[in-house]
């Protein structure tokens, strides 16, 4: 039943990408073994409704007062490769604060933590595959991969889709960011697939006078889900 689905190599980065130093000792070198997904891998973990609370979609209300930074609304849809909505699927997001700092013990970037920002949220897609997150725009931050290296501002997203074979973790970037041109992680992706990692400005989805709007649709590739299951 599988039609000509996109090849992994046309979409995803290779494991070994010399410009990204952490790949040197972690990228597998043997070719992957291609197999049909098992009945397990065409199904996937089902998150109970009460797993996600509405408030978790708003990263700006976690603290006692508002976090610093440029407030933004991120909306989008999660779709499968045939353009069908992925319904009631978990979307987890995490990000640095407006200064480019994560509240993480191994983040030693000398930028302030924001006591009102944890940088973590989650939401279930609706029946149309839509999600909506309220947050602040994360800052860029330096890293030691190469001289004067800075990661462009990004939001991490973790997705399940309807089958475990669709499981994806990715990063969303912002339009017009000059750091994209020098980011080895972003540029590890085949050139034709890079625009798919950049959100569109979508002012009409923001909040008038309060928050900028961005749109980021996510398409999950992988084995088709079985008609049974969920």
């Amino acid at each position, binding site marked *: 039943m599988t039609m000509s689905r996109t090849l992994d190599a046309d979409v*995803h980065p290779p494991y070994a990408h010399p410009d990204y130093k952490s*790949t040197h000792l972690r990228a*597998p070198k043997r070719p992957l073994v291609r197999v049909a997904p098992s009945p397990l891998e065409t*199904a996937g*973990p089902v998150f*109970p409704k009460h797993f996600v609370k509405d408030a978790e979609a708003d990263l700006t209300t976690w603290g006692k007062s508002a976090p610093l930074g440029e407030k933004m609304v991120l909306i989008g849809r999660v779709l499968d490769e045939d353009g069908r909505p992925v319904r009631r699927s978990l979307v987890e997001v995490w990000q640095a604060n407006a200064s480019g700092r994560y509240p993480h013990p191994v983040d030693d970037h000398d930028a302030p933590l924001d006591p009102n920002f944890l940088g973590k949220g989650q939401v279930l897609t609706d029946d149309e595959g839509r999600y909506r997150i309220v947050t602040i725009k994360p800052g860029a931050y330096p890293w030691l991969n190469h001289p004067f290296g800075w990661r462009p501002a990004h939001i*991490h997203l973790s997705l399940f889709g309807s089958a475990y074979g669709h499981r994806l973790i990715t990063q969303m970037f912002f339009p017009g960011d000059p750091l994209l041109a020098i980011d080895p992680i972003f540029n590890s*992706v085949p050139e034709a697939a890079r625009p798919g990692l950049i959100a569109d400005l979508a002012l009409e989805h923001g909040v008038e006078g309060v928050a900028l709007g961005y749109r980021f649709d996510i398409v999950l*590739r992988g084995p088709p889900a079985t008609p049974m299951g969920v």
Partner: protein
Amino acid sequence: MMAKPTASQTVGPFFARELLWSDGGEVLFPGQGERIVLTGHVFDGAGAPVIDALFETWQVDGTGRVPTAGEAARPYGYGRVSTGADGGYTIETVRPGSFTGPGGEAYAPQLSVTIFARGLLKAVRTRVFLAPLDAIKDDPLARAIDDPARLRTLVATPDPHEPKTYRWDVRLQGQGEAVFIEF
């Protein structure tokens, strides 16, 4: 309508507080089952521990059924932990049954495993077997690998002192590199 898939990007080093659950290594099931432990380490190509991997498991229940929705706090059948300072991980779960594919394929007792980490631009996926080499010969992945030395990288071995504890180390690269799969 074909839509263009979204590319993978690394999970990065900064996910622990965001993605981890305090009890994510305890896999839930609605029914009873023999509780077992899967534990081991993840190593890089130099043999150093991978201290910041996100290690996930997904499996059938003790009778070989794929878990579906439930009212537990988390999804059934799904484990999620991070490796520690020594590269170690531990998943406490039920012993999975064998199961059958849509074409009658005989799947040996196994867990589907996905590992994300800094330096992995996309996840590595594989399956770990909880049965000895000679008992998994007919499994579709064992047939596809068709090399006992390579297949052995995916076989967890019971601890001689703790028969309900299975040990499985994963080498991402180089000597003893685990078999990773794609669909």
